[in-house]
């Protein structure tokens, strides 16, 4: 066990998988000598060289398109998109090609790969270095969407993703890239894709979360506990395919639900969670399902700290569902 940051966890996962499998290659902008603007690919170029750690031209559609071609040929590429805000030039490749290749060719062609990209606010990046794009990917059949919230999960999920036969969008919550650190085993392990984790058991209400909102949910539950309310924190980890069983089990237990996400609320990922519960477990609800989310505006720079959901705002929602 070592205490490391999420950046290091990602870095070690890449390094270990590259050591284990010569077909694993990394490509993207500044991932080579520079080691990535967040240092996630640090030292890989020195160890694995130009062919396996590729600094590409400035084209996200090129990065993903080339990675698809590599994957089709049998490599196992792990492209990095420097910020998820810059993934849109590649969206055609992702949604039209990556997500549909297996289906449209009836399994004759597949392109397993992991698209790594930091997402979310909290680093004073403003408009274009802060957005949370998960809902655009979770509405796209054929993709797997993973969001770790701890260094342990980051390493274990990334290794599982690299070994998976499906294309994975791996969203890294950059706000918690460097803190808090977490215990990570030194030996080989993976975290299963498709399984949520209960981060805190509780009986009074459920908070769903993922990524950088996990610690916010935990903090809000501390506040709620002061009022005597025990919250259950369900960290989804994989958004697609969703661990619906875990979701319904928790809400059935607690009867109350707060949906937490950084992304704008309208048509966000959290809306699906509400919809599933309203469809399959409406009877267990003792209160409305409250959503705490980014406002439905572009991500602002100076007012970032107001924009982003924080424990106090979550606490307001908890108050509402508990006192309904």
């Amino acid at each position, binding site marked *: 066990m070592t205490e490391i940051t999420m950046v290091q966890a990602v870095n070690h996962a890449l390094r270990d998988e590259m050591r284990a499998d010569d077909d694993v290659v990394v490509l993207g902008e500044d991932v080579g000598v520079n080691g990535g603007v967040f240092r996630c690919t640090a030292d890989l170029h020195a160890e694995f060289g130009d062919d396996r750690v590729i600094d590409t031209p400035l084209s996200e559609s090129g990065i993903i*398109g*080339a990675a698809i*071609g590599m994957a089709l040929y049998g490599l196992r590429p792990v492209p990095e998109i420097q910020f998820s805000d810059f993934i849109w030039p590649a969206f055609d490749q992702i949604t039209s090609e990556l997500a549909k290749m297996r289906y449209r060719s009836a399994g*004759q062609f597949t392109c397993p790969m992991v698209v790594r990209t930091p997402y979310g606010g909290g680093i004073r990046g403003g408009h274009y270095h802060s957005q949370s794009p998960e809902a655009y990917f979770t509405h796209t059949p054929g993709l797997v969407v993973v969001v770790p919230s701890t260094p342990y999960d980051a390493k274990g999920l990334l290794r599982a993703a690299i070994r998976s036969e499906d294309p994975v969008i791996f969203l890294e919550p950059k706000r918690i890239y460097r803190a808090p650190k977490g215990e990570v085993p030194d030996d080989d392990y993976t975290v299963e894709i498709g399984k949520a984790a209960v981060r805190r058991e509780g009986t009074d209400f459920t908070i769903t979360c993922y990524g950088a909102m996990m610690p916010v949910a935990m903090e809000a539950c501390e506040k709620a506990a002061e009022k005597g309310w025990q919250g259950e924190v369900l960290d989804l980890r994989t958004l697609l395919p969703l661990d619906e069983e875990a979701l319904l089990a928790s809400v059935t237990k607690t009867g109350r639900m707060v949906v937490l996400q950084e992304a704008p609320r309208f048509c966000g990922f959290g809306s699906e969670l509400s919809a599933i519960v309203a469809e399959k477990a409406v009877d267990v609800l003792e209160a409305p399902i409250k959503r705490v989310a980014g406002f439905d505006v572009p991500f602002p720079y100076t007012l970032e700290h107001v924009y982003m959901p924080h424990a106090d705002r979550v606490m307001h929602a908890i108050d509402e569902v508990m006192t309904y």
Partner: protein
Amino acid sequence: MTSDMLQIISESGKALADDDTDLTEDQLVAMYEAMVRTRALDERMIKLQRQGRIGFYVPSTGEEAAQVGSGMVFESKDWLYPSYRVPGLFLMMGASLDDMVANCYGNEADLCLGRQMPVHYAFGKLNIVSISSPIGTHIIQATGTAMAMRMKQNNALTATYFGDGGTSSNDFHSGLNFAGVDKSPVLFICSNNQWAISVPIEKQTASKTIAAKAEAYGMPGVRADGNDVLAVYQVCKQAADRARAGEGPTLIELMTYRRGPHSSSDDPTRYRGNQADEWMERDPILRFRKYLERRDLWSQASEDALQQREKAAVNEAIKRIEKLPPPTLDTMFTDVYAKVPPHLRAQYEELVENEGTGHEADPDAAFPL
């Protein structure tokens, strides 16, 4: 046609000075047969579409030389990223007529299980990558495969086909740019048939030629008469040799003309006059036939036999395929992921429970493109 364009057979079928092809006589005849086979398939399929027996088709009439001349240079280790207008290439590489026809019927025999429209082929065993509709996306994918080949140093190459319209796409730019930097072994083959549906080449780009675009990516750009199968072969062969020798990518422009409609849904009289007529005279099959006849490799008798044989082969394939049933309902839910996840299993079960399989397709649905 401009002077920097390679021509080996004149329009009247005469060999021009530089006819030093390395092709054997058998190969030449086989190429001719492939061209005729391509047209026989195309003509039959477009008729099937007109009869309402398949939903859609894209003919390649007049562009057979581009397909067959280039198809001669590939080996089985090579990978192809085709466009929708190269059925003859697939036949050359070993696709069966049954597989081609089944794709257009989209029934249970379709290698793609009827998941895409007709003419969106995929031949996994032949390394012919699944065609998709979005224009251009495959160009950078071809580069990616070629980057992997360069890493593996296995002398394989990738070739990708696209139209003049495709050169405006985002991934033409990224595909050529990445390949130029990486020196990947890839042939970028543009069938410049001068139209992108109704948009003529002058509205597509102000570049003097498509080949000239190569300079922007630091690679050679070459041009051949796309209706001259030997010229096509020669530029492709040279590019392939360079690619295998580690000398990187080439952009190849094949000058030709889209003689027919864009697709079975298109009516070209709406936007162009009888320009197509002048290209009838430049027919690539006719031209090559004259050439072969001059070299005493072909006769009216062999022609008659070939025509009959190829038409019969297509008809037999249709007879075999047409009667097969559509893909079963479960195929709607498989291959989305490597394993069917719980939510898709549930959706399938609900579907079967609620509806059975009794639905009929809407007979009025008609595709406009």
